[in-house]
């Protein structure tokens, strides 16, 4: 369908917006189908606008300005703290990777350590289940822990400590790099 247009449409729209109709334009609208539609639609919509002019709840311009500034400051602070958050997350990830890596790497030693404390743990759990506090069971459990700890300390502690220091240094270096950016 080809749009039917009239050269006086803009005049009709302006008249509907301002409410100033002259006799000649009224006569034209009564005869012209396109302008009749425009006048009907424009008058109806502008009557809604007239209501809204009274009823609209618009915040004060000063309040809007102040809120916009506050939001932009918050956005700026958010941008600046982004590298810090990145390094935080990176250090958490490094920590988790380090723990998992050590567990995989030293699985044999860990398994041995668990095996050494198991008799004590079993004694402890049986004492608890029978509701008799067995002092001897507790002593053997603690002794097992100390012994296994000592074994671990002798064999692997130096390696684990080195890994830990290395990871901290890597995280610190990454933090410095990001904050410089």
């Amino acid at each position, binding site marked *: 369908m080809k749009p039917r247009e009239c050269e006086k449409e803009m005049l009709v729209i302006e008249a509907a917006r301002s409410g100033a109709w002259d006799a000649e334009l009224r006569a034209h609208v009564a005869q012209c189908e396109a302008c009749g539609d425009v006048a009907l639609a424009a008058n109806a*919509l502008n009557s809604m*606008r007239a209501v809204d002019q009274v009823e*609209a709840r618009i915040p004060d311009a*000063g309040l*809007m*300005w102040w809120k916009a500034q506050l939001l932009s400051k918050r956005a*700026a*602070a958010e941008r600046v703290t982004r590298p810090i958050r990145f390094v935080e997350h990176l250090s958490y990830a490094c920590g988790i990777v380090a723990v998992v890596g050590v567990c995989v790497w030293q699985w044999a030693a860990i398994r041995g350590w668990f095996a050494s404390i198991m008799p004590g743990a079993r004694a402890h759990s049986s004492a608890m289940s029978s509701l008799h506090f067995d002092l001897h069971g507790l002593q053997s459990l603690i002794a097992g822990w100390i012994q296994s700890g000592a074994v671990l300390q002798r064999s692997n502690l130096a390696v684990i400590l080195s890994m830990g220091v290395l990871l901290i240094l890597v995280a610190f270096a990454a933090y410095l790099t990001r904050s410089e950016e």
Partner: protein
Amino acid sequence: MEPKESRGKRLMFKEFTYTEAQQIERAVGAADEIFQMDEQSFRTFYERTARPLWSYLYRTSGNSTLADDLVQESYFRFLRVRFREMDQEYMKNYLFRIATNLLRDHWRRAKLEPPAPVEREGSEPPQIRDSGTGEQNFQMQADVTHAMGKLKPREREMLWLAYVEGSSHREIAEVVGLREQSVRSLLFRARGKLAKMLRRQGLGGVSA
């Protein structure tokens, strides 16, 4: 999961090193200079455009609360834009474009069908320019709102921009994101549809 807003607040209050605090201070200070407009220009522009923008959003969305929110968000976004020319009409169209996009984003996010406009509860009989009584005017408002509700959101947007804001086809095309030629034919169809519905409701006499 912790909401983004809350994470932001937590970060604002965490402890920072001296260097970090200085960096934040510099960036926040620079935020004052982000806006291209000064406060006085903004006030003038806001006084001229806020009510028309609210009206546009309310009549195309049918939700006054949503219109309140989107008006604010539109100005916040508008203030961050760097304009090549500070022409008032151009800036006004840009503002309406932001508002239109925000409205569409809202519907898309909520996965909602845009609702038909509804007349606000308890609204007073409108004071319009014809000589009808308050009750007649009120009925006419209800009829117009009903007819608008039958139109598609894009049709409502185009009709409002053309006949209330007095925008040209080119300006409407920029706001609604269509080609000028498409606006011409879609507007013609929308106008015919609205006029037909209004005549059917016995409102043909409103013209001129």
